[in-house]
């Protein structure tokens, strides 16, 4: 029998060695390939990734537009970070044609290339973000360029005005020094106000195929102007839908605000011992398959989510703060409606080494900014509490309900004593049964 164990062990070692060799065999040799460049919506932002020829599957989120383009470029594998890299400088040529979307072997959609931009009304890398296509994209970009130009002009004017004001102030100062008489305050002008940069940010126009498809598995390939397949463009396309969506919370206890708790699921109850104050930040959240989501983020890393097909992960999306309120309920009745407010953490001076969290007020605290913004839930104690998010109309946002439970640590002795009760019952029964054993010598 031992040889069987030996063979099994050898097969396992061989498998592991083959895996290692396969990984070690990858060398950074670049080659010209037709690749897919992707700007997928990730639920949080638009990402940037690409799929080399060796990658057979593309991942996008369903129900939201994402941009895809096909280009020929040089690609090499970089083993240190285990990812494909593109060499744009050496070669980059857009592959002309139309993108055909197939399902069940039939073409269900043909997409032509279009210009698009990403519009960030609240500034770069700040949600929300909008993908704008076609002529509107051009108009939006032009208006952004104009806003930037206006800002630069205003900055230039401000610089000149500032210089003039500085000169004026210098003259007044010189006169005062020479005469020894103070200047008349009425003659002093206000300094010029610095212009603010435009909040709007728009990315440079790019061209690509905008895909907005329902969840499911598709196939995709590029056809050239003659209607022929472009070799190397055939891929499987997976449009992902979240397994579940809801509202995710980050809960910061007042006592340890730097160690927030996460509550992504409605079954995650918030327990507190005694009257506790805490701060809540809310997010749109969605639960995805880990493997699929990691491939969506970085398809240039084929090993990114390897071996995680059975895992899931919650992804926090846009923060829910404007036009929403946190309602505190007791036994189903609304007790308090809480607004999203900015707060500032102020360190306590002296040896106490503590801090206070106070509501931030720009008037009373000039020159400072908020440390964080959140819904403040104050000194909740007792039973039957819960919280939920509502919009301005008072409609409850689905998946935002959470229970708040007050707990009292019980005496361990009672809990463990009760746990030992079955053993006592068993001992009594066993003793009674043991007493039925024959006492005298067994007689045949």
């Amino acid at each position, binding site marked *: 029998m031992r040889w069987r164990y030996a063979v099994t062990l050898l097969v396992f070692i061989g498998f*592991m060695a083959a*895996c*290692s060799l*396969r*990984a*070690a065999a990858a060398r950074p040799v670049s080659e010209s390939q037709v690749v897919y460049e992707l700007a997928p919506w990730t639920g949080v932002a638009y990402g940037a990734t690409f799929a080399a020829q060796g990658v057979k599957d593309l991942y996008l989120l369903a129900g939201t537009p994402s941009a895809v383009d096909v280009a020929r470029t040089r690609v090499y594998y970089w083993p240190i*970070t*285990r990812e494909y890299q593109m060499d744009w400088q050496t070669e980059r040529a857009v592959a002309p044609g139309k993108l055909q979307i197939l399902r069940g072997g039939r073409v269900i959609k043909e997409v032509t290339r279009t210009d698009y931009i990403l519009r960030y009304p609240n500034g770069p890398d700040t949600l929300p973000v909008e993908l704008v296509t076609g002529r509107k994209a051009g108009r939006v970009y032009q208006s952004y360029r104009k806003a930037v130009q206006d800002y630069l002009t205003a900055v230039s004017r401000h610089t000149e005005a500032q210089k003039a004001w500085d000169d004026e102030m210098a003259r007044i100062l010189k006169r005062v020094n020479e005469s020894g008489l103070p200047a008349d305050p009425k003659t002093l002008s206000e300094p010029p106000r610095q212009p603010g940069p435009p909040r709007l940010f728009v990315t440079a126009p790019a061209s690509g195929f905008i895909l907005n498809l329902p969840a499911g598995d598709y196939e995709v390939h590029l056809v050239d102007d003659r209607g022929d397949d472009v070799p190397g463009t055939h891929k499987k396309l997976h449009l992902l839908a979240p397994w*579940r969506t809801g509202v995710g919370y980050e*809960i910061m*206890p007042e006592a*340890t605000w730097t*160690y927030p*708790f*996460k*509550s992504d*699921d*409605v*079954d*995650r*109850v*918030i*327990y*507190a*011992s005694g009257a506790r104050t805490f701060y809540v930040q809310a997010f749109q959240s969605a639960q995805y398959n880990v493997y699929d989501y*990691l491939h969506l983020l970085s398809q240039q*890393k084929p*090993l*990114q*989510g*390897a*071996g*995680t*097909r*059975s*895992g899931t992960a919650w992804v926090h999306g846009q923060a829910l703060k404007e036009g929403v309120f946190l309602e505190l309920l007791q036994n189903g009745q609304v007790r308090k409606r809480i607004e999203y407010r900015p707060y500032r953490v102020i360190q306590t001076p002296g040896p106490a080494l503590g801090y206070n969290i106070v509501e931030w007020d720009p008037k009373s605290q000039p020159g400072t900014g908020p440390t964080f913004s959140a819904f403040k839930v104050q000194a909740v104690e007792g*039973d039957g509490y819960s919280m939920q998010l509502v919009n301005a109309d008072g409609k409850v946002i689905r998946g935002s309900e959470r*229970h708040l*439970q007050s*707990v*009292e*640590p*019980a005496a*361990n002795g*009672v*809990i*463990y004593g*009760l*746990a*030992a*009760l*079955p*053993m*006592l*019952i*068993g*001992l009594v*029964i*066993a003793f009674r*049964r043991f007493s039925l054993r024959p006492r005298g010598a067994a007689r045949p």
Partner: protein
Amino acid sequence: MNVPDRFYVAAIVAGRELRSTLYGLSLYLTLSLVLVTISYLGIGGAFFQIGQSGMAVLSNPVTGPFFLTSVLMAIYLGSGAALSFARERERGTAEVLFYGPVDSISYVLGKYLHSMLAFMVVAVLTSLYYLFVSALTGLQAGMNLLWFGILAIFLASAVIALGEFFACFVRRGMMAVVAYLAVAAIFILFSLVHGWMISIPGEQLSDTMIYLRIFLDRLDMVMQWVSPVAYFNRGQVAVAHGNAIAFGWTVAELFVYAVTLLACATLVLRRRGVRP
């Protein structure tokens, strides 16, 4: 022998075994040990977390330990079923039953019923205990307790059937227990290692570890059907998400799993005979 006769015989066999189990000390002793341990880790752990910052976000502070206790007791009863099954053959007491109206089907069914009845007793005691702990501490039990309870019953059914299945292949009681516990340990370890490997970001893994993770992931596809731990995980997620359809599927799968193993156990017993 017709079906009602078999059920009657199985019920009598199960009744005797249950009586024997309830008159013994080991069930109560194990239950107490499991309760104390899980309470220390689960309930004590929850209060430790709450004590750290005065609050904590917990999903199943009572139903989790309840379910875990039930699963551990199911594994214990599964090993008990394996031991009893093999030991009865080893000692020849099973042969005496087969002199009479007992056949392979009613015997396997009787053993299974016994373990399930014993599990019901355990489930009732465990439920009462955790409900009391919930009332005492304020940690919520909620409706999940009922769903976890139902899931635990079906899971126990599968685990006990697994114990009987393994016992069919060996004729020594201790051998049956060792084989069963070894397989149970492999299933649990696989689940833990696989879960742990999934949670590690890809960047932190060497190539070998990544391929090992791929291997484990592929193996997991088999384990999803073979290992009761996989059903356990699926059921737990279904209950946590309140997904009635997924819950129903898991329960149905566990039922089929148990029935399949019991049928296999019957065939093996019939083929190998009941004699020591």
